[in-house]
């Protein structure tokens, strides 16, 4: 018995002094990589999956249009609606919205504005195509259909 006891006099504590540093590193990683969402999404958002995705180079040129069935169906009904920033708009207001967004950009960048359409997969093409017609009229012709990377099986 005494033989075994003697060998165990080394301390078996793991030094935890570096733990705060590790945690801080993780914390900074998450603080840097994540973006706080500005608008509350009031519509259902199940983004379609695709394989041929391109990344936007300049985020300042992007404006978002959310399309989908309202989450609060008792208040807004079940017809798909268009949301920008924090409010629902109709197709007619799109030109005005695009112009507002263009005003935020400098003059040389105005033609490069990209409209990111965040459509729910259950939306029908009717509303999407109406939006596209309005975007053509508003001369915001770069459209990005937001989608998630599809995992190939």
């Amino acid at each position: 018995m005494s033989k075994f006891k003697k060998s165990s006099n080394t301390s078996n504590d793991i030094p935890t002094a570096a733990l705060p540093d590790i945690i801080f590193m993780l914390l900074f990683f998450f603080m840097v990589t994540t973006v706080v969402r500005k608008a509350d999404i009031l519509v259902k958002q199940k983004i379609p999956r695709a394989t041929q995705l391109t990344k936007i180079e300049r985020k300042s040129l992007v404006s978002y249009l959310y399309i989908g069935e309202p989450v609060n169906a008792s208040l807004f009904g079940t017809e798909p609606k268009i949301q920008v920033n924090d409010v629902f708009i109709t197709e007619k207001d799109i030109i005005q919205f695009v112009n507002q967004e263009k005003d935020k950009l400098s003059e040389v960048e105005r033609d490069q504005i990209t409209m990111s359409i965040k459509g729910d997969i259950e939306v029908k093409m009717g509303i999407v195509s109406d939006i596209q017609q309005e975007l053509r009229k508003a001369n915001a012709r770069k459209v990005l259909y937001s989608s998630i990377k599809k995992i190939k099986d």
Partner: protein
Amino acid sequence: MGRGKSRKPPEISSGSMADIAFLLLIFFLVTTTIANDKGILLQLPPPPDPNIVQEDIKIPERNIFKILANSQDQLLVENEPFTATMDELKEEVKKFVLNFGEPGAEGVEVYNSLPPSLKAYVNKNGKSPLSSDNPVSKAIVSFKAQRGTSYELYINVLDAINAAYNEIYAERVGITVDEWLTLDRDDDIQKDMYDRARNGIPRAISIAEPD
């Protein structure tokens, strides 16, 4: 005085530092979502000019690859019902674009610039008199959806058409599709590669307005 000398400088205990950091970490983990700014890029045509009378331009049937989608999410590809997978649709589009049926001078020039693997592909699958003349100015992929078509199918078909073009471009400059998609156009070498791949084969996708 003797007692004062032996006193240690005051220390703030830092044992709970990790706990505070954990708390912050969990807060950021829960409240933030990683922004998803990826998607399929599409350039819309300019709005119709009311001052110019729209002329009907006759394009031979063989130069248009027609894809129609109805409200029941069924596809009609080149006037035949299509039930196969999107991968097969991609192959069909690829064959159509790289057909070189009646290339003419500009088509021959593009054909000669292709790498051997793509030339072999053209010789094996293309040269059909019933399909497109050349990819330079003739071949157009037309996609028409109806108002009742689901957005999901629309994206899937658009994805398949884009995949066909991207595969051609990537193979033309000898890189994989994934490398092609992440090409940085601000970099001169990569921009040159991008231009070389696209030269002579424009991405001619026509999205028709639904009825």
